[in-house]
């Protein structure tokens, strides 16, 4: 089940050999319950090169998770193109979309573990669904992935018995179970203690090198993310407001980037969800 992807990869790498994800003029609005669409992206351009670790950072609620879902084909863009591995994601039919997804791993912000299965079965799930490997091989592969995230001993626990950070690591083990070409990490570092944070950072870097993965990391943890990322995109209010290698960004003069990277409370980055002025609201009772 794994071989064919590798082979296929070799054949159709003509169009953009170096570019794994290519996003152009992406616009997207969430359908809100009040009926008024919530505009999230106003024409985003983004390139993710093969084999790199690319970080997408931005304030909470800018739509980072939404962007990952768009790349994974779970949401449809209002306009613009999203290409992954040379394929145009929004126009794919179900079959090709699913075959593309087998080559992507995604680590959900919430972990999204299947609550009626043990840790072991959760990691084994993609293998059982997509391959016909014998049980002994499944076992070895699962234990290997669990070992990599330091949770081999937790294999018989149920997801409800895990801490938030552990659940995230199990989800990571599951995301890499099929040896994908690309992994999208949604907030991998939140809820990790300093040790597992360090382990995770190392792990992401190692996976990237040894499996020749491409990694997209969505994170608020500026320091950690900057330390392992090759390239960083900063998103705010539906636009890319900063891009470059971590060194470039740290030297960037723009007030926005400096505020975000340094974590200063005051500056051009809005802390508040858009609202009418507070005094007005208090007085307008």
């Amino acid at each position, binding site marked *: 089940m794994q071989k064919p992807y590798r082979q296929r990869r070799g054949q159709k790498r003509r169009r953009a050999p170096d570019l794994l994800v290519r996003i152009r003029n992406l616009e997207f609005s969430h359908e809100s319950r009040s009926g008024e669409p919530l505009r999230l992206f106003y024409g985003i351009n983004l390139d993710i090169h093969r084999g790199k670790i690319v970080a997408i950072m931005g304030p909470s609620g800018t739509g980072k998770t939404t962007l990952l879902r768009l790349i994974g084909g*779970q949401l449809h863009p209002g306009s613009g193109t999203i290409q992954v591995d040379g394929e145009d994601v929004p126009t794919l039919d179900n079959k090709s979309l699913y*075959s593309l997804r087998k080559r992507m791993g995604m680590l*959900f912000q919430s972990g*999204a573990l*299947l609550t009626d299965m043990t840790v072991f079965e959760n990691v084994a*799930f*993609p293998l059982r669904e997509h391959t016909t490997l014998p049980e002994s091989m499944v076992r070895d592969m699962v234990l290997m992935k669990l070992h990599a995230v330091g949770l081999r001993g937790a294999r018989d626990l149920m997801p409800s018995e895990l801490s938030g950070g552990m659940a995230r690591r199990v*989800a990571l083990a599951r995301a890499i179970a099929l040896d994908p070409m690309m992994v999208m990490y949604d907030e991998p570092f939140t809820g990790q203690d300093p040790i597992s944070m360090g382990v995770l950072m190392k792990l992401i870097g190692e996976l990237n090198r040894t499996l020749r993965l491409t990694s997209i990391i969505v994170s608020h943890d500026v320091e950690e993310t900057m330390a392992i990322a090759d390239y960083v995109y900063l998103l705010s209010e539906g636009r890319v407001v900063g891009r470059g290698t971590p060194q470039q960004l740290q030297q960037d003069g723009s007030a926005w980037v400096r505020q975000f990277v340094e974590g200063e409370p005051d500056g051009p980055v809005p802390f508040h969800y858009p609202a009418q002025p507070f005094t007005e609201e208090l007085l307008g009772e």
Partner: protein
Amino acid sequence: MERIQQLLLQLFSVFRRLGRGQLFLLHLLGGMASLITRPGLVVRQLYSVGVHSLVIIVVSGIFVGMVLGLQGYNTLVDFGAEESLGVLVALSLVRELGPVVAALLYAGRAGSALTAEIGLMKATEQLSGMEMMAVDPVRRIVSPRFLAGFISMPLLAAIFTVLGVFGGYFVAVPLLGVDDGAFWSQMQARVDFYDDILNGIIKSVVFGFVVTWIALFEGYDATPTSEGVSRATTRTVVHASLAVLGFDFILTALMFGA
């Protein structure tokens, strides 16, 4: 004017939901074929949908049968026709009470559980996570549950009916002194396989289909929050029960009306 507009909008959203429900049904039926290769998935659901509903079905069946026996006896004895008690109990159960009451209990016991389970899986992103792992959640999660419900419901109705007859027998013969032989022989003579038993089975098959479909769709279509799931669960019980009664009328009219 605004009222009319709102009404139309609501009507529109009802139709949209109906449409979504039907697409969902097609989708989950499409997943049936692949279940042949993975019977384990269905067996596990048969256990949680069917076996877990057994207790309530067994207990209710016996009690409903006993009540039928008591009430029937009181009416029949005035006409000196208490020997026909067996027929009365059997026919009421086979034609009506078996399928209908079993379906209502099934909706309350298994249907609500199915809705809550799938709604919570949606709320905790498990379904979305599966999609990203290139596993179709409708085929993997919903289809086996549907098949299990579809198989369980007629069996539960049959168990309900049989136990109901025994409940009626227990009240009639040992307690009220109806003649043992007359109770069974009249029943045997008057209950027809095609007219009564087969029609009862058809009813329970239809109910199983409808209740399971509603329960699964409500879960899958639930707003992914705790409030949304709790509402969906309530809706399952209400809509499924109404659907059972509505279909019962239609089916009865078709079967026994002419």
